[in-house]
């Protein structure tokens, strides 16, 4: 065992409850009624009945429950989970923005969070004044800012405009300045939330380098991100949150693999029975499955992807199956129909058929992809079923210094030549 003294943060049974539906904005008269009834020892008449009687869970929502972990000095701890898993709530608790409903969090040394860079900038003040203001808001002493002022200014890369009011800055400049201050906080525990997504690539590289420096210089970092690439290369240990609870914590590779495996198997297959098969008078869907052609668990970038559709054709006329591929922003990436490679004769006979469409490897960029499936008949769309199956394309661990998410919907492997 390592010396226990190096534990810098400890959470024990931490929970955070939110009230759902109760807006907490009762009228004054209700408040008064509740008070007088309480004085007389009666039940509050303004409270809804099921809230006091039966323990209806719908009223309370535990954003976090029973979360326990510890962070050792110098550790880079990653926190992953789907949206709504409680990551942000946990960060809010750790950065003391809100208080837990139960449990205890203990910390040593200064804990700073980068929940939002450039917090508290005043538009009328100059960049220089705002460095002091922002630094103070983030818990820096004035003497600290004095000492680091030049570093901060040169890190931000806006030396020429440092005495210009911040309201004249572009949003990019504001972010740079904000990050420059935050990067020089030098707390014992640094909490970072998706900050890597801000700024251009050059700035991202700078920030990433700064974060690595922090980690290497023995600073403890808590890092929250959806970016598994950055997670893998930065963190030594990862906590996976699901529905407000710790689903798993341990070495990065193990947890990330389990997380990705769990996530991508969630909606890759759908089956319908005789009764509920969706479709129209020309045909119905019975079974849809999307899987890596390699037979593996993950949809790796280097895998081809098979979409297998079992469908019933109800007419003896040509019917075209169509597949649409959308990304998580609901942008259409591509659509394909069965006539692209099959002749009309192949699609003529009615009955149950299985169609397989293969998307080649090295095609989609990493991220969530959602398929819609439909059928066309007589030159018009007979039906289109959205959100049939979904899967997550995973990028292999990357070498090099840049870990930001690659932009674009496709990530092709194109032949390059140098002459």
């Amino acid at each position, binding site marked *: *065992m*390592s*010396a*226990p*003294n*190096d*534990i810098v943060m*400890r959470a024990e049974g931490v929970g955070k409850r939110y009230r759902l539906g109760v807006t*907490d*904005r009762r009228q*004054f008269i209700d408040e008064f009624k509740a008070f007088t009834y309480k004085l007389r020892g009666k039940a509050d008449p303004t409270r809804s009945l099921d809230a006091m009687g039966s323990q209806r869970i719908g009223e309370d929502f535990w954003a976090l429950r*029973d979360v*326990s972990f*510890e962070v050792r000095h110098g550790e880079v701890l990653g926190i992953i989970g789907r949206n709504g898993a409680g990551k942000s709530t946990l960060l*809010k*608790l750790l*950065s*003391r*923005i*809100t*208080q*837990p*409903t*139960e*449990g*205890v*969090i*203990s*910390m*040593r*040394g*200064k*804990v700073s969070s980068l*929940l*939002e860079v450039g*917090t*508290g900038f*005043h538009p*009328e*003040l100059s960049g220089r*004044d705002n460095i002091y*203001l922002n630094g*103070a*808001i*983030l*818990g*820096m*002493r*004035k003497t600290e800012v004095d000492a680091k002022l030049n570093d901060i200014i040169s890190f931000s890369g806006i030396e020429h405009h440092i005495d210009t*009011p911040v309201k004249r800055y572009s949003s990019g400049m504001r972010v740079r300045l904000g990050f420059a201050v935050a990067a020089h906080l030098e707390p014992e525990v640094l909490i970072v939330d998706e900050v890597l997504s801000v700024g251009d690539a050059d700035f991202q590289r700078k920030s990433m380098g700064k974060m690595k420096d922090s980690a290497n210089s023995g600073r403890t970092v808590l890092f929250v991100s959806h970016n598994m690439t950055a997670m893998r290369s930065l963190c*030594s*240990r990862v906590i996976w949150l699901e529905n407000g*609870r*710790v*689903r*798993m*914590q*341990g*070495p990065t590779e*193990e947890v990330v693999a389990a997380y990705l495996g769990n996530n991508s198997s969630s909606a890759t297959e759908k089956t319908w029975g005789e009764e509920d098969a969706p479709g129209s008078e020309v045909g119905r869907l019975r079974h849809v499955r999307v899987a890596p052609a390699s037979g593996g668990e993950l949809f790796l970038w280097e895998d081809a992807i098979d979409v297998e559709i079992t469908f019933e054709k109800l007419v003896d006329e040509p019917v075209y199956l169509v597949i649409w591929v959308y990304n998580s922003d609901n942008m259409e990436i591509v659509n394909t129909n069965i006539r692209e490679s099959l002749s009309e004769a192949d699609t003529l006979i009615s009955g149950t058929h299985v169609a397989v469409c293969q998307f080649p490897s090295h095609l989609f960029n990493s991220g969530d992809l959602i398929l819609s499936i439909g059928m066309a008949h007589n030159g018009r769309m007979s039906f289109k079923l959205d959100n049939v199956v979904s899967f997550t394309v995973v990028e292999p661990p990357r070498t090099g210094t840049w870990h930001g998410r690659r932009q674009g919907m496709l990530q092709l492997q194109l032949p390059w030549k140098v002459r």
Partner: protein
Amino acid sequence: MTETHDIGTTPAGTVWEGAVGRTWDVVIRPASPWWRLDLKEIWRYRDLLSMLIYRDLTALYKQTILGPVWVLVQPLLTSIMFAVIFGLMARMSLAGYPPLLFYMAAVVPWSFFSVVVTKTAATLTTNAPLMTKVYFPRLIPPLSTLGSSAFTFLVQLALFFVFALFYRVSGFLCLGTRLGIALVASVGVIGNGLALGAGLLVAALTTKYRDLAFVIGFAVQLLMYMSPVIFPLAKVQEGSKLRIVVEANPLTPVIEGFRGSLLGSEMHWSTLWYPAIVSAVLIVLGLALFKRVERSFADVV
């Protein structure tokens, strides 16, 4: 050494002697009692306090032609306005003092009070974007308002003395400087207490009842007419309904006392008991309620 942990629980066999070696710096628990003010914490953030005061003072008058001169122009214009309307047109008798001085001696402390109350009352709303993102002691913004307003107040007071010299009226000299300063100081403390306490109370209640944000403007205005800012208390008929209302206002002795010590009229210390008690009650109540809402504030807004 492996780091594999059980799912959802603390690692088995880990004993927390760690905390013995060096105590925790911060322990976050579900609730801390309302009387724990954490003055140490506020002291730790004193640089933020001074930065916010600096921000309040400098940012306000950016992009104005007169700039910081507005600090002097505002009370002067108000006093001139009162002097013209009440002194000249309504021919209000002002116990023989020059109208401008008479009004300035009350407008300066009054504007201090009203700015602190209204700004403190809105502190949770105006600083919401900040408070939902960064932790700092939530009392810092109200304290910074108090600080920047106090600075403005002192500057305006200096202006008053310039005018007093011009009119050759000086309460300090009449009353004896020591007594004058003691009076101004105690009146100031009480006034601050009233302003901060009432402001915090309203701030806390506003998170629940947004109506108060609208009410506060009228309330402050009403309070002014209920206090001897525009008329000397002695002119209000003893025993009349108006007199009772004016005397019920804890600000009345404060304003009277302040004007008295500046202009050199008679002043009874005993009148200060009432506002002192009200101010203490407001401060305790305001702090308690403020502390209560600041805990859950980030979740509600």
